[in-house]
């Protein structure tokens, strides 16, 4: 039975099954959008927290670290209440759309990217503190230098965020609704197809997810070598 499932799954992949491609495309679109938004916010913000060390910074890092461990379904639920018709952002009318999924994934990975960015930049700043201050640089100039010097580490951080977002199921299921041909992504499709017993497509998507995870791990490993 397993061999039959695998055969069908590989067949779906190699024949570029339309449903499969559609689900993968949407998954990548949602995850990449969330990742880009998150990285644009989180990397400068994480670096900013290193340079402007005060009480507020400790609180932000504490909140960020706490949010890192937040169960995605809880986050999904919070976003659901905010963007549903009666929610304060109900006027946006984004519930059960890819936009809501992007919001969920962005909020899910932003604390992770902020915390990891902060850690990487903080380590580097300790090494360069005297040098950068000796040059009498502005904080903006220091920020640019630190981000550039941490570039490989920050790519790893970004990929970690990508891995976390692409593997997420709870939040996107709640705010996206797993609507066929509209908000169905790899993880929600796997859950759905498995529950209805159509395991071949689920296995094919699972294989793709494993492949993505493998590629990310490979890139992270080689970047660590460069670092």
């Amino acid at each position, binding site marked *: 039975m397993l061999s039959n499932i695998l055969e069908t799954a590989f067949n779906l992949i190699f024949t570029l099954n339309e449903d499969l491609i559609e689900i993968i495309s949407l998954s990548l679109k949602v995850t990449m959008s969330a990742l880009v938004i998150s990285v644009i916010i989180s990397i400068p913000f994480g670096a900013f927290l290193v340079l402007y060390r005060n009480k507020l910074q400790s609180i932000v890092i504490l909140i960020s670290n706490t949010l890192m461990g937040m169960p995605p379904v809880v986050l999904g639920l919070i976003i659901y209440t905010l963007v549903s018709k009666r929610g304060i952002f109900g006027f946006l009318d984004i519930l059960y759309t890819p936009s809501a999924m992007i919001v969920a994934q962005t909020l899910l990975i932003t604390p992770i990217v902020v915390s990891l960015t902060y850690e990487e930049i903080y380590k580097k700043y300790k090494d360069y503190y*005297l040098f950068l201050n000796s040059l009498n640089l502005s904080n903006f100039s220091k920020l640019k230098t630190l981000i550039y010097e941490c570039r490989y580490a920050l790519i790893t951080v970004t990929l970690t965020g990508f891995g976390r977002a692409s593997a997420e199921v709870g939040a996107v299921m709640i705010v996206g609704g797993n609507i066929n041909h509209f908000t169905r992504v790899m993880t929600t499709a796997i859950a759905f197809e498995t529950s209805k017993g159509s395991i071949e497509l689920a296995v094919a998507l699972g294989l793709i997810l494993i492949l993505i995870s493998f590629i990310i791990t490979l890139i992270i490993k080689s970047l660590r070598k460069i670092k």
Partner: protein
Amino acid sequence: MKILPIKIENFSYTVKDNEILKNINIFSEEKKITIIAGNNGSGKTTLLKFMHGLIDDPSNSITWGRNHTSEIKEKQSMVFQNPILLNRTTFENILYVAKKKRVNERNSVNKIIEKLNIESISKTDARYLSGGEKQKVAIAMSIIGNPKIIFLDEPTSQLDPVYKNEIESIISDLSKDDTKIFMTSHDISQIKRIGEEIIFLDKGEIIFSGRVKEFLNKKTNDVIKNYINYG
């Protein structure tokens, strides 16, 4: 802009009830190599950092000519005991400082690389340089933009005699080029070779300030006597 004489008046520095520097008074008006010496923990590096502006001076107890440290920050640079280089090539490291100091970038960088004889490592990533090479690059970075004052924190403490000799001659040349040098050192033979003025610290206090020749003949103070004999 005149940066001499340098005057420090009654400066003390305390960290968590621990007085690192006590009632420091310095007056120096000549463009010579001034050595800041003393045993471990005597406050040499702290004094250097303070003079360079890495430690705040809220009481403005230091003046350079008629200026405060913040006003002449662009005219000074510092080389640290453990050279701090960016993860870039030698050329890019020097170029980085050139850009930050807004000097004629590539031209100046090439001139300094030639002057310090580091052409062979100009394309080498800083991570792969030896200790001596790193220190030379750090000095190259410090002299870009022709600073009027250079602070060197034990620049040769971890180097073999060949590199030590090379770095010393670079420092002597810089001094001849109209640059005021402040340098911390443990090494009494080095102080004899290149030092002209010396400020000697003991437990955060200056116990001698004057010519190196006078210092070497000062046999009345036990701390200095031991330092000269065993240094």
